[in-house]
């Protein structure tokens, strides 16, 4: 990584460059419009069906809708950063960028800034549909929603950094990870259920994930309890560790990319 402070002009240039691309490729809005709505319809309807019986079924309704809305924070932040980088490989723009003064952190900040706008649209749509179609108001979670969403945002970015590192090392063949990796993380994170519902063998893995503690905190609040700060703190610490590991991995892979001349794959 290059040293020194970040340049706002360069961060803004990257964010704007991706805005231009989105403007001319409206099909890329699919990720922030169609999938979120399909997910809310699917999990909202399952929740409504299960909730008809009352009792714990009513709890499941909140868990499912709250879970899917907050899961989209992870999904949107991850997918926008990973596909932002993949766009550079698809349009063979990587060399153009690498010969400018742009620092790696500036690039990530620029794409993340652009991704934040997509995230607001994507998560906003899920929350709106949940409210209109199922009378589920995610803001009922209250102020506890903010730290939980912030942690999930960082988790999404960290997973994206890992995906970018893998693509730098193994080339475009690894890009399927950008969409596939979350399918592995989601069931392990107890997005819709307590971690105890998973097979015992998977408990240690699940408990090591920051998402597990973030969603457990969400369920506690939905159950009417006060914000479980111990779970939130655990989620924050493990998210920070994950971010550190992802940064280390990305830096290492960038070193391998430069050492082995992998730019030839994209130029």
């Amino acid at each position: 990584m290059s040293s020194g402070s970040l340049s706002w002009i360069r961060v803004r240039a990257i964010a704007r460059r991706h805005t231009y691309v989105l403007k001319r490729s409206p099909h890329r809005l699919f990720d922030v419009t169609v999938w979120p709505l399909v997910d809310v319809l699917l999990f909202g309807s399952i929740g409504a069906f299960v909730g008809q019986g009352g009792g714990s079924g009513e709890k499941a309704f909140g868990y499912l809708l709250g879970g899917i809305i907050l899961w989209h924070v992870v999904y949107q932040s991850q997918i926008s950063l990973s596909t932002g980088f993949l766009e550079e490989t698809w349009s063979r723009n990587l060399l153009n960028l690498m010969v400018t003064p742009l620092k790696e952190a500036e690039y990530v900040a620029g794409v993340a800034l652009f991704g934040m706008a997509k995230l607001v649209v994507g998560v906003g749509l899920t929350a709106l549909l949940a409210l209109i179609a199922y009378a589920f108001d995610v803001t009922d979670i209250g102020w506890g929603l903010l730290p939980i969403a912030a942690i999930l945002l960082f988790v999404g970015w960290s997973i994206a950094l890992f995906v970018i590192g893998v693509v730098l090392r193994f080339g475009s063949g690894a890009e399927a990870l950008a969409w596939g990796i979350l399918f592995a993380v989601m069931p392990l994170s107890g997005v819709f259920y307590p971690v105890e519902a998973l097979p015992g063998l998977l408990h240690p893995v699940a408990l090591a994930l920051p998402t597990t503690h973030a969603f457990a905190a969400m369920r506690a609040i939905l159950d009417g309890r006060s914000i479980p700060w111990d779970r939130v703190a655990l989620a924050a610490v493990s998210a920070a560790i994950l971010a550190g590991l992802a940064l280390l991995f990305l830096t290492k892979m960038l070193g391998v990319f430069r050492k082995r001349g992998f730019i030839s794959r994209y130029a």
Partner: protein
Amino acid sequence: MQPVFEAHQLVKRYRDTLAVDGVDLVVHAGERVALLGPNGAGKTTTLMMLLGVISPDSGWVEVVGHRLPHGRSEALAHVGFSAGYMPLAERLRVREFLRTYGELYGLESPFERIEEELERFHIGHLSSTMCTELSSGQRTLIGIVKATLHRPRLIVLDEPTASLDPDVALRVRTGLRDVCRDEGSALLITSHNMLEIERLCERVVFLSGGRVIADDHPDAIAKRFGRDDLEGAFLHLAGGHGQMPLPQETDRPA
């Protein structure tokens, strides 16, 4: 004179292939230097190490006093690069593409500069065109405008005129000479067009087998190898009559 670029004993190996083998190169302000050699001689790998895109196995690179890789960002703020094989970003109009890169090079409001540079190469009318709708020659010109937009101390061009017709190639040469004269920029260029190099450059560095085997004025190089012109000297050297054996072609940038 202060060097804008200095490479010391650069070595780069890809598995069994030694792509660059101890290259020393210094380029001074305002100099127009050609880096020549047959395919696989190590030209592009040398340029990529200069730009910090590929890290050398040993040796070092310094650009305007900034040592790579630590000072990469500061160094590259003074360098403009374009290559004939580099596409422009898709889904962007020319002015959007140039605005993006102008800002990446630190120009806060680059529009005036964009117009000036487009006019320098007589392509102001392309400003609103989508990058994907440009001919290969026009793409090359836009790439060169991108490389000169921020008035860099060093312009690095890799095979810039490979796809250009003689008329456009002349425009490129004239434009580049103007930039170097007006802005005091140094030029480091690779090309397989020897006539173009004779017309544009005052110094030729000839690479073969990853090593520098000649470094002089184009006429002096031709004379040294008993040829009438640079093309004769190139064919002589590339044909294995130089001091170094011919390199092997690789699938790596070289």
